[in-house]
């Protein structure tokens, strides 16, 4: 029941918001806030209710949905150690997104409704245990994203929104084929049963099926060379959307690779492991190098996401319990850190209305709190120990090093690159001589701004110093998976 509430509560709230009368328009944010908070509380409660020792899926709900002969779909949701943390991440970042959007006054009803629908669909992706349900939610997320970017965005927002949607649709088109082929062979869309199925004689060679699914997820992750939608989407999206996009939407890709590609087709995963690790390492480096050249703060962070998400793939490619756990942890860590980063950039942008690094400078003097937050986020982003990113990165490296020494050695160079671009950005934006054109600007001052920044920062620290809290949830699931992979 909890999962259904998580999925449908925001959807219902979105409907409520849309039905608000015009004069209560500005109250939409409160409805959204209450909803997001309720979701967060509920998911956290689930997180602690979750039985860490029992394997398999928990909180499972199963209903028949479409039952037409061979076309047999279920409403089947549940969480395990992989998806539960991601669900919590989603609700957490939804809350953060709602809070950072508190100052949105342009068509607030539609805005918050979109945001909630987005949350609903992302949660749906993470908890669906039926392939078709999964795909449905996967596609559903496009609407709100498209509208959010194209209406409330900036710059070339229409271009970016369209690019985002087309890219995702293209990826999911491939994914759909893979899903259909798999489901045809196993005669079911149930992920658990698919995982148990032995695929023989599929319509397509299983490797192709893997590849088809992989493409869909790689677009989302994103993996070089399928990444160019990300910088555009990020740079033109409003803050909250960047938070959601970097924070949870990219994770859908990594989640999909683990949940579908690797779990359902372990043999193929074995054949392709070196490729995955190699592409992951390549993404890390490539993203890092290109990030160094970015002159727009948001684009910079977007490219850094490309680099960081490469690590996820590297960890997955290791196909071991450590690598997979690290990959999952990296998704969480990156979600929080980049979320925080975009919040900070958003706060800054709200005041300066520019993201051009060249136009900024010395802001730490005018807005010390924002600068502090930015430095904190930057440090987390470059993988500073005691913050979440470090644990994730090192776990990935340790997990993958046994099998792919060179890939790991190559990608640890990314650690230096990330220090390079983050510090360069901080130096240019926050430090240096004061620019008096920004003298009028205020520091962060609203309670929601404080709450978001402090909350996310606290979580980043918590994940950095007490990883066991989450690792203990992720690990059993990944160990089981790894055992299956070794078999």
């Amino acid at each position, binding site marked *: 029941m909890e999962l259904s509430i998580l999925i449908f509560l925001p959807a219902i709230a979105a409907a409520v918001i849309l039905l608000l009368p015009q004069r209560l328009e500005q109250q939409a944010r409160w409805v959204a806030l209450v909803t997001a908070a309720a979701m967060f509380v509920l998911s956290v409660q689930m997180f602690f209710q979750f039985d860490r020792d029992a394997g398999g899926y928990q909180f499972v709900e199963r209903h028949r949905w479409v039952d037409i002969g061979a076309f047999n779909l279920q409403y089947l949701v549940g969480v395990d150690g992989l998806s539960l943390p991601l669900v919590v991440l989603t609700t957490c970042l939804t809350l953060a997104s709602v809070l950072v959007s508190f100052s949105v006054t342009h068509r607030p009803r539609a805005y918050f409704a979109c945001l909630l629908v987005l949350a609903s669909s992302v949660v749906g992706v993470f908890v669906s245990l039926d392939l078709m349900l999964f795909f449905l939610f996967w596609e559903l997320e496009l609407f709100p994203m498209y509208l959010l970017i194209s209406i409330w965005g900036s710059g070339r927002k229409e271009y970016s929104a369209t690019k985002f949607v087309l890219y995702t649709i293209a990826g999911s088109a491939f994914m759909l084929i893979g899903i259909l082929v798999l489901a045809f062979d196993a005669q079911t869309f149930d992920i658990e049963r698919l995982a148990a199925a032995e695929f023989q004689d599929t319509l397509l060679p299983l490797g192709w099926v893997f590849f088809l699914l992989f493409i869909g997820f790689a677009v989302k992750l994103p993996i070089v060379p399928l990444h160019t939608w990300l910088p555009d989407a990020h740079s033109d999206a409003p803050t909250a959307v960047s938070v959601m996009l970097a924070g949870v939407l990219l994770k859908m890709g990594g989640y999909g690779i683990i949940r579908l590609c690797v779990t359902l087709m372990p043999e193929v995963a074995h054949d392709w492991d070196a490729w995955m690790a190699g592409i992951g390492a390549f993404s890390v480096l490539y993203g890092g190098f290109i990030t160094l050249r970015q002159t727009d703060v948001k684009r910079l962070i977007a490219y850094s996401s490309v680099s960081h998400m490469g690590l996820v793939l590297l960890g997955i490619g290791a196909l071991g319990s450590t690598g997979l756990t690290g990959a999952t942890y990296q998704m969480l860590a990156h979600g929080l850190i980049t979320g925080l980063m975009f919040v900070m950039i958003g706060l800054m942008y709200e005041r300066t209305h520019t993201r051009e690094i060249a136009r900024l400078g010395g802001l730490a003097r005018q807005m010390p709190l924002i600068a502090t937050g930015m430095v904190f986020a930057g440090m987390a982003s470059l993988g500073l120990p005691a913050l979440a990113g470090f*644990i994730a990165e*090192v*776990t990935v490296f340790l997990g993958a090093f046994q099998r792919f020494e060179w890939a790991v050695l190559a990608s640890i160079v990314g650690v230096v690159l990330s220090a390079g671009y983050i510090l360069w950005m901080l130096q240019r934006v926050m430090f240096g001589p004061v620019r008096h054109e920004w003298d009028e600007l205020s520091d962060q001052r609203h309670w929601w701004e404080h709450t978001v920044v402090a909350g996310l920062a606290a979580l980043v620290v918590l994940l950095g110093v007490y990883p066991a809290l989450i690792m203990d949830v992720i690990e059993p699931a990944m160990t089981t998976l790894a055992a299956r992979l070794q078999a």
Partner: protein
Amino acid sequence: MLFLAAEPSAAATPTIDQAVLWAIMACPLVAWGLIALYLRKVPVLAGYAAILGIGAAMALSYATLFNVIDADGGIAQYTHEWFTAGELAVPIGVRVDGLTAVMLVVVTTVAFLVQVYSTGYMHGDPGYGRYFAHMCLFTTSMLGLVLADNLFQMFVFWELVGLCSYLLIGFWFHKPSAAAAAKKAFIVTRIGDLGLLAALLLIWTRAGTFDVTQIQEWAASGEVKSTVVTLFALGLFAGAAGKSAQFPLHVWLPDAMEGPTPVSALIHAATMVAAGVYLVARFFPVFEASSDAADVVAWIGAITALLAATIALVQTDLKRVLAYSTVSQLGYMMLSLGALGYVAAMFHLFTHAFFKALLFLGSGSVNHATNTFDMRKMGGLRKHMPVTYWTFVIGSLSLAGIFPLAGFWSKDEILLDAWRHDRALWAIGAAVAFMTAFYMFRAIFLTFHGSYKGGEPVDHHDPDNHFHGDPAHPHESPWSMKAPLLVLAVPSIAAGWFAYDHMFKDFIEAALPHAAHHGSTFELGIAISSTVIALAGIGTAYALYIQRWADPASIRATFAPLAIVFERKYFLDDLYETVFVRNIFYRGWCRLLETVDRRVVDGAVNGTGRLGRAVSAQLRTIQVGEVQSYGIGVAAGVVVIFLAVILANPL
């Protein structure tokens, strides 16, 4: 959870409670938290909180030290599980032994004194609270690094001290040079940290442990392939080289002088930069097991020592002289470690911490009076600031290695080890010793002797300038600054006396698994020769800068090419920054990739879109609007379909 009882690992262990060890870290951390959250805007309290927190840590450190001494340098280790990720199990724990105890004491003592000093030095700075917060965080991290019982944890704190170093170098972030220096420090040390990270990965995959003791035993067991040990050792050393500013990664340390002077004293002279030495010492058996790695360490150390000393000869900035001196001395320590002089290196680290901190604080005091570090604008300060002068001289003498000051004993041991290991190393060491004595006294003579040249005028329009004296009339610093100088003068003189009866040696060697004899501590010939060399250096400086037997400028002109090389720091900064980073890397490689990304990768995407529209526009022209063409389409369809069927599947 952290304080759950754990089995101590060694039998003859110190009885110190692990809570004390954790508390050593916790005290400054609490102070940090208090300052960061509540006392940022209350400068006085912030300073006191920092002093209190670090003072408490210092007290506990001394307690620990005496406890370890009581246990004859035995090892106490308390390990817990931090987290597990699949096969990976990461421990968290504390380990205390002679090495740790010495480091604890050095770190907390210097830190404490520097905090006291800072209350005077940083007085009136708008970032006063922030300063102390960073200092507390640094102390915590440094203590954590020292106390760590495993490489992973060490790495964590290793990076954290790097962060604090970054924050403190860039403390005056509005100065572009400070911001750039901070960034440079972080990135350059991170390059070294790659090696450390690789070592971390290697040790986990090959030895399956991060534990210090186990790694030492693993290396000492001799069952491991030597390349693995060598690679591991080199990885560690790469990290150490970054932190300890060894060639070719030394370039960040001189720039780090952009930070407040107390910071330079604490972080960039006494503690953090010594962490590299500490790391190598911590894993000394690994280097013992790999002579190749040891040689690399020794020679890198020697090169660094020589390089930095030569550059220090020509510096005009007091702090930079000290900075290069630090680099040079760190090279000395590395040289010693590479020459398998474990004890000597640690001993030098120990003594160096005090006198170098003293020198830095002294230079800060000078700056406090003159608003500058440029020695060409000073002179004659001896009269105005006697305490500063005399403590500075003590520090310099100690650094130069004059009997019986602290530096003499430790430097002497290093030269002895070098002599025994490789004469070439000794020769370099001796040359460096000469240069050290020379440039230190050159600095003293330029700064404190002669006539005062007026200092740097205060720019009152600069909101960041909190200088509140009058550079035209230099005065002695307040007691908050003088007291630490005086206190530090004591160990600068006396710290070397621990060499008596192998006291330090035995104590610190107990930290190693197989207590071998790592060199004796004294040999008269070496001692005399080094003293002579040092005196020669002082004499030369006296001759040139006091007696003016020769004009330094003309000497410089004579050796112009060499002087330029020194002054331009062997062109290394230019090579790195301009040639490599900016041109080859940034404007070449990254730009190439970015262009590829924009034009090719993204271009393919946009190109597909454009192609689609173009194809669409072309295709639509077949809709000419004439009905016959449409009918022809139909008829052609029939023909084509029929032919296709027949061809595919003949009758």
